[in-house]
């Protein structure tokens, strides 16, 4: 008869091996997202809930990211009952009471996207897996937004997009777990075209310089189709590398063409440099085809306009929101943001604040953090009081439909923030399109994924 000797060390070894063996399937089958939770990914335990703010903290969009982060911190403060409540007072849905979300205190973690898709995915993944974030929001680039949105879909958490303007985010790359409040390229084109026709006429020859990436393509397509529909002719189209800093060799061929309008489908540093170069080469002083030469910047950002300085004066563009709006929601937001930080918020800050409020409100109305319940609460949700007039979160593509601002670089700014003036508030109906519009074709929301 043999005798088995049981030692303390042997038990520990066996236990460790067995434990590791049992853990393997959860590590490698993808259900690690739901590890330790029942029902859905990262169901909040205890009396707190964690949100993940994924913004560019380094790299060329770091200033925009910093403003987004300020807005998120303000939103958390308001949700937890601090400050003056901001837009919670003006939001048409009065589900939020300043007691956190569903009575749980809101906490947050931050990640750095670096405006790189892989870095953004890695930081989002870390916030979901390690920090237990139940919702991810942020981004200052469409490439990043599309990548993180897909990751959140797989992980089973909600993604509330920050600043992303490409049609694809709610077009061919739309996802059931992802939502966008910010406007898009199509809306820019649709809002701008009538203003351009009124100011510059319908007989114009346009030359496009376009940033060579996803957002540039969709913006050029949108502006081209809108302007061509009203009679403009597109005489030139050149893709410029995203890394380009000096645009002079792209600007000078415009002088040789018979174009009388230059459309700069550029954002960020690209926009600052291409616009500066275009003005240096005297394009704005030219007279072509008997008309004054004009420049158009489809997507404006106040932070970027600051970089271009006096060169933005008189140039038309579009923007999602501007601090000079006088509706109650905008005033409340500018007041609380301005009091806390000493300067007015950017459009990036606005959309990020609003997205956080919309998420919190949806959870309250749904009575659950379950992503599928949140999706249901947001789909087809109509609201007001958040700064853009009556707004619809369309169920078919998770895109917000609201008024779009056409702006112009201000001739006589009174301060460093006073760079753009609102020319027209284009009504939502004018920028609304069918869910299967060709510029948005090819995408499917799919089913919602709760993760677990």
């Amino acid at each position: 008869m043999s005798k088995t000797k049981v030692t303390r060390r042997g038990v520990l070894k066996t236990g460790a091996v067995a434990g590791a063996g049992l853990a393997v399937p959860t590590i490698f089958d993808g259900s690690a997202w739901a590890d330790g939770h029942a029902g859905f990914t990262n169901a909040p335990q205890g009396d707190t809930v964690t949100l993940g703010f994924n913004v560019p903290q380094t790299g060329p969009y770091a200033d925009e990211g910093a403003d987004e982060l300020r807005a998120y911190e303000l939103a958390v403060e308001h949700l937890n009952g601090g400050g003056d409540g901001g837009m919670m007072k003006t939001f048409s849905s009065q589900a939020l009471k300043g007691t956190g979300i569903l009575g749980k205190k809101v906490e947050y973690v931050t990640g750095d996207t670096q405006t790189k898709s892989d870095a953004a995915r890695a930081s989002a993944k870390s916030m979901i897996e390690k920090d237990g974030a139940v919702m991810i929001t942020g981004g200052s680039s469409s490439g990043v937004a599309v990548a993180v949105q897909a990751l959140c879909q797989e992980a089973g958490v909600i993604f509330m997009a920050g600043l992303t303007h490409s049609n694809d985010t709610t077009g061919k790359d739309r996802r059931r777990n992802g939502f966008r409040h910010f406007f898009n390229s199509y809306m820019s084109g649709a809002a701008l075209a009538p203003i351009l026709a009124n100011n510059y006429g319908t007989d114009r020859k346009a030359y496009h310089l376009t940033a060579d990436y996803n957002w540039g393509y969709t913006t050029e397509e949108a502006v081209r189709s809108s302007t061509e529909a009203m009679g403009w002719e597109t005489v030139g189209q050149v893709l410029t590398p995203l890394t380009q800093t000096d645009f002079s060799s792209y600007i000078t061929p415009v002088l040789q063409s018979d174009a009388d309008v230059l459309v700069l489908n550029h954002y960020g540093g690209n926009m600052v440099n291409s616009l500066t170069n275009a003005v240096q080469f005297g394009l704005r002083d030219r007279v072509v085809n008997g008309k004054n030469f004009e420049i158009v910047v489809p997507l404006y950002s106040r932070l970027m306009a600051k970089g271009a300085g006096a060169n933005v004066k008189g140039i038309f563009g579009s923007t999602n929101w501007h601090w000079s709006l006088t509706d109650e929601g905008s005033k409340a937001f500018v007041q609380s943001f301005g009091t806390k930080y000493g300067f007015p918020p950017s459009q990036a800050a606005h959309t990020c604040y609003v997205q956080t409020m919309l998420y919190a409100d949806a959870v309250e109305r749904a009575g659950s953090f379950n992503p599928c319940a949140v999706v249901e609460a947001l789909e087809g949700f109509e609201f007001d009081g958040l700064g853009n007039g009556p707004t619809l979160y369309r169920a078919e593509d998770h895109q917000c439909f609201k008024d779009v601002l056409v702006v112009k670089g201000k001739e006589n700014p009174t301060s460093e923030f006073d760079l753009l003036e609102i020319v027209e508030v284009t009504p939502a109906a004018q920028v609304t399109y069918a869910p299967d519009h060709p510029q948005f074709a090819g995408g499917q929301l799919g089913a919602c994924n709760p993760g677990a």
Partner: protein
Amino acid sequence: MDAILLQILNGLDKGSAYALIALGLTLIFGTLGVVNFAHGALFMLGAFCAVTLNNILSLSRTVVDETQTDFLGNPLKVEVPYIHDWFGPEIGASIIEWSVPLAIIFSIPIMIAVGFIMERGLIKHFYKRPHADQILVTFGLAIVLQEIIKYFYGANPIPTPAPSAFTGSFDFGTMLGFDPGTIIYPYWRLVYFFFAMIIIAGVFAFLQFTTFGMVVRAGMADRETVGLLGINIDKRFTIMFAIAACVAGLAGVMYTPINSPNYHMGMDFLVLSFVVVVVGGMGSLPGAVLAGFLLGILESFASMRQVVDLLPGINQIIIYLVAIIILLTRPRGLMGRKGVMED
């Protein structure tokens, strides 16, 4: 024809910047044998000297204007620069407007000091280390300098315009008999080109016609022998490093009205400048200048619509393509000397 002339002109200012940076890189490599990846950061620091001088000249006192309100509805706080108080509003405004040319004087002592501290404080410890170590440490230094600038100045570009006397453009077209407005070139870019020419000529004259320059050239050719003659060549090489830093800094100062400076601008030029040095021939000063202008002009041509339509993407690879061809046919570069980087 007019399109070709225009692209040649376009290549000149870009070429000027490449040539100035590559000249500094070659000076450092030729004297100290160090591959300095922080050279682009020196260009960026020069640009931020201009920004800093502008900020200093614009230092203001706050006056509350009760007649206007700010974005929160409070009385507007108006900034009045001290310089307006001292010299009157008109002269004060002109001084601020001329901050970029004034920054040339401001940046020279700063860049020389930066170069001196960099060489004595860090780079001298890497003379006997492999080139890979030098590249790593100088690249690391470049990132540190970038992040310091970003911490103080933010990530967005900062507009630093040229004096209004230099805004607008020169119409070469009418001068050469073409239609007016077909070949125009901004005044400041012309200023940049001539400024680069003066700096390049100055550096060559300094090396060619002064005793100091003669000793440095002798040291570049045979460091050991010069040392044996009792000359402290290390001290002179340190001074050359500071001069090279100053050249890069001045290139950066004058570049600010062309493109609004940001913390990353040095990196954008660095890689291309290294290609310029290699194409020109490692250690050859005239080679660096020649290759700088050549590649600047080629890059301009490759961006022409007709060329891009014919060969899509050529604008992004042209410099590297030419570098490969030149290195295959002339492995030492255009004007490379025998024995440099060959042991």
